[in-house]
């Protein structure tokens, strides 16, 4: 089992063969191996090559992109060094690293502020986005009335709304959280609503004939069925939340990575802007990582134990 979950981590391909191996083990045990004996022999071969496939997949998944990043940074360093481009125009990675080291106290407090804002916004977006999906699902009339509006609303550029929000709500935390919610809720709501609507009708019939109430149908089928699509939406929302926080800080903030970037820009410190961008990426990936972890814990069955 641990082997098959490792393979699962390694790659989709590895997972399929790992899973099939498990199914065969199960059959062998219970049906006395009579079912699909021929296949079982093939599976042995598959099991032998499985490790090799998994290694190949791991190389493709981690090593290849890692090498690409390293090459990119090395190329950038070589270009700035050899061309002698001014550091205020395009700093080298080494310049940026030095700037980051020098400014690490300020970076830390600003990152903490942005992280706090992003998480507050994401949290609000999750609550509002999920509640909206559930209401639109449970009240079909409301769903058909509001769904098209929701889709159209996504064509409103959130950034353009920012000045209005400042007029209405001031410069505090609230307008910034609202911006993040506006950016984040949509993928979450749409994915969750889709998942709720697409639960298996055969299972629904079974539950209803077995006496399930509407509430039981929702809790025992629709909600758990919507979890994987919900997490797809949440991954997008998580990524947007950090970018949303930076944009919100550009509206006017006394701290945060967005504010830090604006100050660096006014001082023509491109090296500091690069550092801030790198930190933003790391922050985004961290939030995404937490979501992935949560997904692992919450999504059960369906190929993962």
């Amino acid at each position, binding site marked *: 089992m641990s082997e098959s979950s490792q393979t699962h981590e390694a790659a989709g391909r590895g997972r399929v063969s790992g899973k099939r191996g498990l*199914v065969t083990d199960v059959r062998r045990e219970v049906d006395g191996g009579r079912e699909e004996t021929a296949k079982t022999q093939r599976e042995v071969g598959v099991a032998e090559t499985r490790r090799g496939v998994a290694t190949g997949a791991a190389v493709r998944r981690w090593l290849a992109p890692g090498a690409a990043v390293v090459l990119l940074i090395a190329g950038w360093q070589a270009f700035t060094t050899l061309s002698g481009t001014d550091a205020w125009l395009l700093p080298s990675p080494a310049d940026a690293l030095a700037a980051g080291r020098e400014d690490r106290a300020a970076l830390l407090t600003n990152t903490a502020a942005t992280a706090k804002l992003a998480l507050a916004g994401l949290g609000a977006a999750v609550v509002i986005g999920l509640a909206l999906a559930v209401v639109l699902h449970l009240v079909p009339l409301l769903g058909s009335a509001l769904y098209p509006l929701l889709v159209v609303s996504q064509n409103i550029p959130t950034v353009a709304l920012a000045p209005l929000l400042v007029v209405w709500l001031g410069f505090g935390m609230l307008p910034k959280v609202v911006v993040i919610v506006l950016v984040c809720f949509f993928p979450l709501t749409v994915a969750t609503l889709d998942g709720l609507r697409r639960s298996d009708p055969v299972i629904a*019939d079974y539950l*209803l*004939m077995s006496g399930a109430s509407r509430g039981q149908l929702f809790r025992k089928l629709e909600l758990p069925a919507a979890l994987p699509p919900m997490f797809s939406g949440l991954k997008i929302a998580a990524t947007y939340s950090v970018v949303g926080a930076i944009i919100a800080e550009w509206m006017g903030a006394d701290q945060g990575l967005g504010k830090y970037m604006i100050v660096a820009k006014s001082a023509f410190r491109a090296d500091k802007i690069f550092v801030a961008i790198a930190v933003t990426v790391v922050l985004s990936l961290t939030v995404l990582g937490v979501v992935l972890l949560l997904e692992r814990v919450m999504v059960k*069955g369906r190929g993962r134990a």
Partner: protein
Amino acid sequence: MPENALEVAGLRKSFGSLDVLDGIDLTVGDGEFVSVVGPSGSGKSTLFHLVGGLLQPDAGSIRIAGQDAVGKRGRIGYMPQQPALLPWRTVEDNVVLARELAGTPRRKSRAVARDWLDRAGLGGFAQAYPDALSGGMRQRVAFLRALLSDNPLLCLDEPFSALDAMLRADMHRWLLGIWEENRRSVLFVTHNIEEALLLSSTVYVFTRRPARVLERVEVPFARPRSDEAVDDPEFVRLRRHITDLLKTEPLKGPLAQ
């Protein structure tokens, strides 16, 4: 004399212009194993959806244990044509689902679930998820889920149609063994004539759509039955008879799917 487990009379159902059931009369006595055989698309699953209260009939009555059951859900232990297990629940938690819907907390059904899983040869898989099971094992889990419902009447919709012949024979032995022990009332739908004769005491043969009862066949073999019953001359005769019934039935309307 206890009430009949199920009495269906004059049951009609159409979907728009598609007539599916054209006046079905059918009875399952208390503790009786009754099968319905009919061509696919004749409306057998629709009959279950009506008995299970999922659909409203256009005419006719349905009584379960003497009580009107038209449009009433939660009165049967049901095994659908596909296993329809919840993929995010362990085998054990799937098996207790029907009881859970009826209000029995999950933990109170765990012991009995474990016991039945052991007896079904699934003891080692109580904590496994359905996607780790073979087709036959999933069918057994879906069957146990129906069996563990507190309703006396079991409705099984082509439970073994997806299995190969050998696995199917295993399942017949297994099902007969369980049935001999507790003699639940069973309505069993199949399009496999031999399966119907082997398992039941009464077989209803349905026509093509729109379905009527073509014939009600009593199956005289003593219980407990073994699968050697299929070689009995009387068994062979009955099988021939039903096969001929279904074969010579004149085509009417569009061909059944």
